[in-house]
């Protein structure tokens, strides 16, 4: 290659010319090659949120119980007097596409350390997954690899995977989505920070040794996947060591117990560079680091490699001067490496030496102050046309057959073969495990209280109407938590979209964030953190804009947790909440008619708030025998699932006045804020009164009992033995 055709250095590290000029402006000189690489990674979309930051400002982040909002490694919210939960979600989409097992495994490791960085012991994991259809062996392989990776890491570290979701669409074939969330517990009085402080305090490196893995992983996550990328980005595959991850959790908690730790952060994307820059910038101080003191796995690593390595299972800590031995001892007791590698300085400068040689000298804030971009937002014409599609003339298929097909659809079918691969019981907190609307964990620290968690999102809805998808994800997650009887207290969100430099994706991003923001504002549930993954595109196109929302709720008494399935013959079946449904973006439309089109229902957020409140109070008052939210597959699937879960049938009548004329819409139409509950006959009056007072509509639909699900409609009747429902629902592929 001649000098003339060589890519400019800034382009090689992924910066634009203007960005390079801005770097020079901030430094007052040109960066040296090591510094340039650091900017390349720190100013990548993955680390810097260049395209998403302006939108994220719209999210409501404050609330009465919020101890830490976005801006730290995880959000923290109080869940009982003196007890707090840390909460965070993170994506590992690109690494999982390249190596599903290790990509997903390291995703688990990373999110555990985010929560650990707040001083919390991780107590639960959730996974939200998207793949191409499972009849494609490649998609199945990806899925099985991802599940095996999560299982490998989660089981080994002893943090239960208590919930999650798996949905399949063509658009995820080349771009699977792997979002993992973690919840941790900590004393409210002992929330840690990543803000470095105290000039003269030593900086401690702890955990696994540094190798050449994952160099440039953050910038890799900010590129589209193409055929050549696999080879070119070999360095971007990281391998996790759950054993080291487990030791790091125990040793770090022990180190924090000494009281000698001032601040800490994990070394994730962009490794040591990111941790040192963010910790310094957040604390308004500087750091001096000596790279030759960093424990290494390989000989001959350059300073750039040590600074940018994304080797897993490492933490950076600032420790009170004179007490470093206590902290080092905790790590070494657990067989991990721990070394003092530098110290905090008052001057806001990051000064890095290698064998006495100064290799980097930068203001840390320069690394954390990437520019932001606004791309003009433009809804594509074709999308509007899809949404405006007239679905009123669709032929109606045989409804029984349609119900079984929807139940068998991979996105709806029971996920037991997945979640039995996860240890969901370790730590002895799991009162309700995977398979229910939300998982319930007891708080042994504050009995009989518990927390509930759920993760939800529907990319198809967001594709047709980003706002409806964003708001819908919040509604579904909060409703799931409310169904088990818990009051939602916080959410964290993961946004997965395509290339944000395209106006269409900018439009999707804006709409999705607005939907989340509006919903959270009306529901009074703060967003305490989140994650953005962009550039989820291949030559086959972008993924559907896919927001996933993790909701954390608090349950006054875990003994009052409401089950999903029908419990007792004779109980009344009641459909509670919104009456608005549509086939737009529904599972039925795709499965029975092969179409993704139509106008999804936009949530009535005020009604949703009242619905959540009614469910929580009804649960507390013991009025509910079961509760299950309506999502993919609508009322028919919810009834079927309640029958299968309870092992009992039900007989329902859907009168056209209440449920609409078109029977497939009544059965399979989808829309937010709808729940099917069962209530003991003697409690019905109290429940109806509670709903009436809160202006939440209810429709009496039938009774629990028998061995069939019978649904009588205006002109038709659907009758399916519960056993057939079960075998359809268990047809996992």
């Amino acid at each position, binding site marked *: 290659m001649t000098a003339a055709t060589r890519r400019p250095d800034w382009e090689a590290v992924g910066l634009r010319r203007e960005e390079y000029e801005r770097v020079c402006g901030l430094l007052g000189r040109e960066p040296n090659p090591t510094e340039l690489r650091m900017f390349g990674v720190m100013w990548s979309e993955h680390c810097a949120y260049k395209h998403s930051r302006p939108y994220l400002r719209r999210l409501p982040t404050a609330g009465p119980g919020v101890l830490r909002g976005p801006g730290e490694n995880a959000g923290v919210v109080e869940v009982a007097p003196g007890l707090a939960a840390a909460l965070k979600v993170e994506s590992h989409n690109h690494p999982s596409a*390249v*190596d599903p097992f*290790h990509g997903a495994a390291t995703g688990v490791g990373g999110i555990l350390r985010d929560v650990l960085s707040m001083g919390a012991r991780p107590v639960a994991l959730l996974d939200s997954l998207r793949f191409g259809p499972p009849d494609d062996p490649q998609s199945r392989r990806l899925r099985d690899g991802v599940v095996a990776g999560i299982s490998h890491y989660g089981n080994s570290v002893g943090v239960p995977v208590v919930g999650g979701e798996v949905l399949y669409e063509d658009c995820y074939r080349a771009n699977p989505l792997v979002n993992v969330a973690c919840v941790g517990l900590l004393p409210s009085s002992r929330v840690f920070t990543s803000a470095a402080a105290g000039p003269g305090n030593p900086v401690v490196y702890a955990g*696994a040794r540094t*190798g*050449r*893995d994952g160099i440039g992983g953050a910038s890799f996550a900010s590129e589209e996947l193409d055929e050549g990328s*696999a*080879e070119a980005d*070999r360095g971007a*595959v990281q*391998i996790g*060591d759950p*054993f*080291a991850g487990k030791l790091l959790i125990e040793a770090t908690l022990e180190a924090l117990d000494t009281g000698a730790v001032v601040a800490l952060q994990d070394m994730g994307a962009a490794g040591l560079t990111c941790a040192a820059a963010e910790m310094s910038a957040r604390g308004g101080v500087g750091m001096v680091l000596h790279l030759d003191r960093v424990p290494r*796995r*390989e000989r001959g690593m350059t300073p750039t490699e040590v600074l940018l390595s994304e*080797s*897993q299972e490492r933490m950076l800590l600032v420790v009170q001067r004179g007490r470093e031995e206590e902290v080092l001892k905790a790590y070494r007791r657990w067989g991990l490496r721990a070394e003092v590698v530098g110290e905090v300085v008052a001057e806001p400068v990051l000064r890095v030496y290698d064998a006495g040689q100064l290799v980097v000298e930068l203001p840390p804030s320069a690394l954390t102050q990437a520019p932001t971009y606004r791309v003009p937002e433009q809804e594509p014409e074709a999308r509007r046309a899809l949404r405006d599609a007239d679905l009123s003339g669709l032929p109606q298929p045989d409804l029984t057959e349609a119900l079984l097909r929807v139940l068998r659809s991979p996105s709806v079918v029971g996920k037991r073969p997945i979640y039995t691969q996860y240890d969901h019981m370790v730590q002895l907190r799991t009162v309700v495990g995977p398979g229910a609307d939300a998982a319930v964990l007891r708080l042994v620290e504050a009995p009989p209280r518990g927390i509930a968690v759920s993760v939800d999102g529907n990319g198809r809805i967001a594709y047709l109407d980003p706002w409806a998808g964003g708001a819908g994800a919040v509604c579904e997650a909060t409703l799931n938590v409310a169904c088990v009887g818990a009051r939602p207290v916080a959410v964290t969100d993961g946004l997965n979209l395509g290339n944000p430099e395209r106006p269409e994706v900018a439009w999707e991003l804006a709409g999705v964030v607005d939907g989340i923001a509006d919903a959270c504002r009306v529901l009074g549930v703060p967003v305490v953190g989140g994650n953005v993954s962009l550039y989820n595109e291949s030559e086959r196109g972008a993924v559907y804009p896919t927001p996933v929302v993790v909701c954390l709720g608090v349950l006054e008494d875990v003994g009052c947790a409401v089950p999903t399935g029908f419990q007792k013959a004779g109980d009344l079946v009641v459909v509670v909440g919104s009456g608005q449904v549509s086939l737009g973006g529904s599972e039925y439309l795709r499965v029975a008619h092969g179409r993704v089109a139509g106008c999804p229902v936009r949530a009535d957020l005020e009604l949703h708030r009242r619905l959540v409140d009614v469910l929580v109070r009804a649960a507390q008052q013991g009025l509910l025998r079961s509760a299950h939210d309506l999502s993919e597959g609508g009322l028919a699937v919810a009834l079927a699932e309640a029958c299968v879960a309870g092992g009992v049938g039900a007989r329902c009548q859907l009168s056209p006045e209440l449920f609409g004329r078109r029977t497939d819409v009544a059965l399979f139409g989808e829309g937010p804020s709808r729940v099917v509950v069962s209530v003991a006959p003697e409690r019905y009056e109290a429940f109806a009164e509670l709903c009436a007072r809160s202006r939440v509509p209810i429709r009496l639909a039938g009774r629990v009992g028998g061995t069939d699900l019978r649904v009588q409609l205006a002109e038709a009747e659907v009758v399916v033995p519960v056993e057939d429902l079960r075998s359809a629902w268990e047809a996992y592929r």
Partner: protein
Amino acid sequence: MNKRVRVVVFLKPGVLDAQGQAVETGLRALGFEASEVRVGKAFELTVPEEGWRERVRELCERFLTNPLIEDYEVFEREEVCVP
């Protein structure tokens, strides 16, 4: 006709080999002198003889290994009947 082949797979040099580290520690604890321990995988399988080299190569690259992080070697075996 069939062919019996053995494939041995190791992580590429430089890729973290957590198992290798653990085994090395274990060996040392037992008083064995051993270093640079690497742990890999081994496969044995029977494939149709015709064009077996290309087949096995393809199968390794597409299924048995991740060529990004692993190297493999293929060996011919005597045709043995695995009961």
